């Protein structure tokens, strides 16, 4: 399978030594979308939640303090940039590093809240993210061992072996753990139960984009529909 078959027109490469970022229409669109969304988030302010109190007519407003707002905005911007980078990278190990960065920053975005439930689930998510580094980097390493390269531009031309299939399953488990897709969504879903919406949405957006990109990379490596 050709890179152009999956991603539309092949627009060019950005060489950084052995790490060659490449642009196709599909990648470029996702890269742009991530950057635009990051810019919007960097300019926006947080929502505040209003909770009704039980038994009385009072209400309570949950606001994000200034300090918390600043750290969350910073981490959200880093998360958005890492997502954008993961979209156009043409190197498997580089991609796993971007995913790892997204995972760490996601924990950080919710680490500042004061709700105990949210912190608990963020802790569980952190444990998964730690366990997931093993299949994530292990998958990339075993693809390097079995093919001798981790550049996607070269992997396109290498015929699939059984071990490559196994390595990509490992890689997918790693990404699934880091980005918290089903059936591991519960921890991430609980993490959203707090004030400060636009910054929480980038957690969601980054996992969505990373999953789409992972599927593209797995198709590039495994060529399920013939070369």
């Amino acid at each position: 399978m050709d890179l152009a078959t999956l991603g539309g027109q092949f627009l060019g490469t950005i060489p950084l030594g052995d790490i060659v970022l490449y642009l196709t229409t599909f990648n470029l669109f996702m890269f742009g979308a991530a950057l635009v969304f990051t810019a919007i988030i960097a300019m926006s302010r947080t929502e505040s939640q209003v909770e009704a109190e039980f038994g009385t007519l009072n209400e309570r407003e949950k606001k994000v303090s200034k300090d918390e707002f600043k750290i969350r905005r910073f981490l959200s911007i880093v998360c958005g940039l890492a997502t954008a980078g993961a979209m156009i990278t043409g190197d498997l190990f580089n991609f796993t590093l971007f995913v790892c960065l997204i995972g760490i920053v996601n924990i950080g975005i919710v680490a500042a809240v004061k709700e105990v439930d949210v912190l608990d689930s963020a802790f569980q998510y952190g444990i998964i993210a730690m366990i997931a580094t093993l299949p994530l980097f292990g998958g990339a390493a075993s693809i390097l061992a079995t093919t001798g390269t981790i550049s996607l531009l070269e992997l396109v031309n290498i015929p699939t072996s059984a071990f490559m299939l196994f390595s990509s399953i490992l890689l997918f488990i790693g990404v699934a753990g880091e980005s918290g897709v089903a059936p591991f969504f519960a921890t991430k879903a609980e993490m959203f139960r707090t004030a400060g919406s636009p910054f929480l949405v980038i957690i969601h957006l980054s996992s969505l984009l990373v999953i789409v990109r992972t599927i593209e990379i797995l198709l590039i490596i495994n060529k399920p529909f013939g070369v």
Partner: protein
Amino acid sequence: MKLGRIWNSLATPKNIPKVFSIILGLVLLAGFIVPLTYNDHQLYPRPTPQLQISEKDPLAPYNRGGIPLEEPGIVKAQYPQFAPSEGMVTGYLSPIAIGVSNTTLYFGTSIYSSPGGLIDEILYYSRGFDTILESSILMMAFVIASWVALHFTMRRREE
């Protein structure tokens, strides 16, 4: 009924790491029956692990040879056209590193070998972007940890 209970347990954050590690463990076990194929024309070659140790090389197992700025060591890049001076500094040793490597046979595996010692050229030259990303992962972890430590997001003492 049974299925509903499984879904419910999947919706409890506390159970998720267990589920994840069980799935990972099963896949890793399945990996034992997958035929291993190893490509020995590797991108980042190095000699057999015990070879340099048997030769009593103090830089073992990280000796890639080469004379700094004169003769390239054994470094193979994926795209040599993007790395024109490949291998030129891989043999560099700082004065301290030279001193230590003359006194002990285990310099290559000691902590001295990284900063200012053996330069891992793959890290800093042909795959430099990865190094930047790795350090930024570390930096983000420190940012989060220090923010949480400074702001006491949990009430630690009853006041």
